[in-house]
């Protein structure tokens, strides 16, 4: 892998530095300008993200940068392969959408700095920077610091409104996240003790199957699963994501919870390629399947809309981990493994857009009605048709109906499962889709019903905000036009994969 030209490396550095500079500026200059600083940086960050994707696509190679010109193992490397580029682009787009949506909810105060706008915009930028740091980090300890950055940026967003339930939810989230971090660090210690480096590429060359490597990877994976709220570590997620303000829930469910999943992928496919035992991958798959079924069933029983959407997140995260039993052992070139890889990643990306749109739509509905009880949604379909339309579009992706990114993702996972002979995953995917259809239609049916008395709206919701929500939901739908075969962009940097073979 060549050490990239400075121009490419500059882009990687900017991806982290731009949001961090935004955080520093907002704090220094004062909370009255935080919103403006954030909205100025968003297009710049989007340009950087597109540029990174363009460079990776053009060179068809991993974009690598050694920070400070120190070579690993002594120094730290940034690496952006196709997967990183896709995630960085998704993050930039989603942050822009959420930023535009949140302008009305956290406007800049006129005279004196107030708490909520400063904290929200600063932490939104911090989440952005931390996510980018996770997606391009090439060193396991650097990734630990990035994960802590992400946790500290995300936790205060949960309790932004200061109510007791959200404070408790934030504390529980923090405790689970700290538990995850400490397990991750313990695994990293063992890896350094055995191999003398924490650089991902160098580790992949020296790592050998043995108790030390297995113990380290298990510990790190367990820690990351706790952060990703995979069953049975999911307890913290529903109250936290339901209690946060709508734009914060959107980024939390959309991307913050995907970062640990991204790291599990890095661990299993980059740090120890070919070492994963089938049994271990099946365990991840079983946990994922349990999450899908459990999360969907509990979602059906929810009374509040935001809690339903949060449990839906618990379920949809399960799909991500179905990727492991189907894509492990890539070097043997099983053709379905590339389909599983693409399916899993596409699920992560399309769910990010769809779930963010759903939370934002639920936020608008709650603002308009003054509550988010599902039983009281009647009539909102007439009052906020665009919002309910956006909710329905997002629901397409969750259910796995065409056209949507979710459909492509689930179809790839289905194909891979059948081709690999592991047909039980296919059953789970189908069941999950049916259950998702259940809870999406539950909401839509109530929303489109006529209310018995005329609906009094607490607040008017601007068209522009509703349009932003539809735009984000449309991103999930547009991903459905991705061709139904393994994606070339996502394969960049995975030399051991056989492309094609599945028509």
């Amino acid at each position: 892998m060549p050490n990239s030209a400075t121009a490419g490396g500059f882009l990687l550095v900017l991806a982290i530095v731009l949001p961090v500079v935004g955080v520093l500026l907002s704090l220094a200059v004062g909370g009255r300008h935080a919103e403006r600083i954030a909205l100025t940086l968003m297009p710049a960050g989007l340009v950087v993200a597109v540029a990174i994707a363009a460079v990776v696509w053009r060179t068809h190679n991993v974009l690598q940068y050694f920070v400070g010109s120190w070579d690993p193992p002594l120094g730290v490397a940034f690496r952006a392969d196709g997967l990183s580029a896709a995630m960085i682009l998704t993050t930039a787009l989603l942050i822009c959408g959420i930023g535009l949506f949140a302008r009305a909810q956290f406007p800049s105060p006129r005279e004196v700095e107030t708490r909520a706008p400063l904290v929200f915009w600063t932490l939104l930028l911090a989440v952005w920077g931390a996510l980018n740091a996770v997606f391009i980090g090439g060193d396991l300890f650097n990734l630990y610091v990035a994960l802590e950055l992400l946790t500290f940026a995300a936790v205060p967003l949960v309790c932004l409104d200061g109510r007791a339930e959200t404070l408790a939810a934030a504390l529980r989230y923090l405790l689970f996240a700290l538990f995850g971090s400490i397990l991750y660090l313990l695994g990293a210690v063992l890896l350094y003790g055995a191999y003398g480096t924490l650089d991902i590429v160098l580790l992949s060359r020296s790592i050998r199957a043995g108790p030390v490597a297995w113990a380290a990877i298990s510990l790190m994976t367990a820690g990351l699963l706790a952060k990703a709220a995979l069953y049975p570590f999911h307890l913290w997620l529903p109250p936290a994501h339901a209690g946060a303000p709508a734009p914060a829930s959107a980024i939390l469910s959309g991307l913050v919870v995907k970062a640990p999943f991204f790291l599990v992928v890095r661990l299993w496919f980059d740090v120890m390629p070919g070492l994963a035992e089938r049994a271990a991958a099946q365990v991840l798959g079983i946990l994922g399947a349990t999450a899908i079924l459990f999360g969907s069933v509990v979602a059906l029983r929810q009374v509040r809309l935001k809690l339903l959407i949060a449990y839906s997140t618990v379920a949809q995260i399960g799909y991500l981990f179905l990727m492991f039993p189907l894509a492990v052992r890539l070097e043997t070139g099983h053709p379905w493994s590339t389909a599983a890889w693409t399916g899993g990643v596409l699920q992560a990306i399309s769910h990010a857009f769809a779930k963010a749109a759903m939370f934002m739509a639920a936020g608008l509905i709650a603002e308009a009605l003054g509550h988010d009880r599902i039983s009281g949604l009647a009539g909102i379909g007439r009052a906020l048709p665009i919002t309910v339309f956006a909710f329905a579009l997002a629901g397409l992706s969750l259910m796995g109906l065409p056209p949507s990114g979710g459909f492509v993702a689930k179809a790839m996972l289905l194909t891979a499962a059948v081709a690999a002979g592991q047909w039980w995953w296919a059953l789970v995917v189908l069941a999950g889709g049916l259950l998702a259809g259940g809870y999406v239609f539950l909401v839509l049916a109530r929303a489109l019903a006529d209310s018995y008395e005329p609906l009094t709206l607490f607040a008017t919701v601007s068209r522009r905000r509703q349009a932003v929500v539809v735009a984000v939901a449309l991103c999930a739908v547009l991903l459905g036009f991705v061709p139904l075969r393994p994606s070339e962009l996502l394969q960049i940097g995975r030399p051991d994969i056989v492309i094609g073979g599945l028509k």
Partner: protein
Amino acid sequence: MSAVTLYGLCGAILVGMGLFGLIVHPEPLRKILAFNLIGGGVFLLFGAVARRGAAAGFGGDPVPQALVITGIVVAFSATALAVALLLRLFQEIGRATLRSDG
């Protein structure tokens, strides 16, 4: 058994003790203490790894030592945030507990 192995084993024991405290104590403040214990154990393990890597005239491998320093600072800031959350929760509901029965 060398001193280094001894401290490494101490680290392992600390991790176990901290884990026990984490599981057994329901009060969040005790859990925070337990986290610090586990963290101390992990850092001790790192320290043993560093001591094993003594070479080139240094008493220990400086890279893990630097990582431990970073880790100690990050662990403190996590403790501070958790304590602040806990105190604020206590101010709101009068109890320092995560039980949702009230």
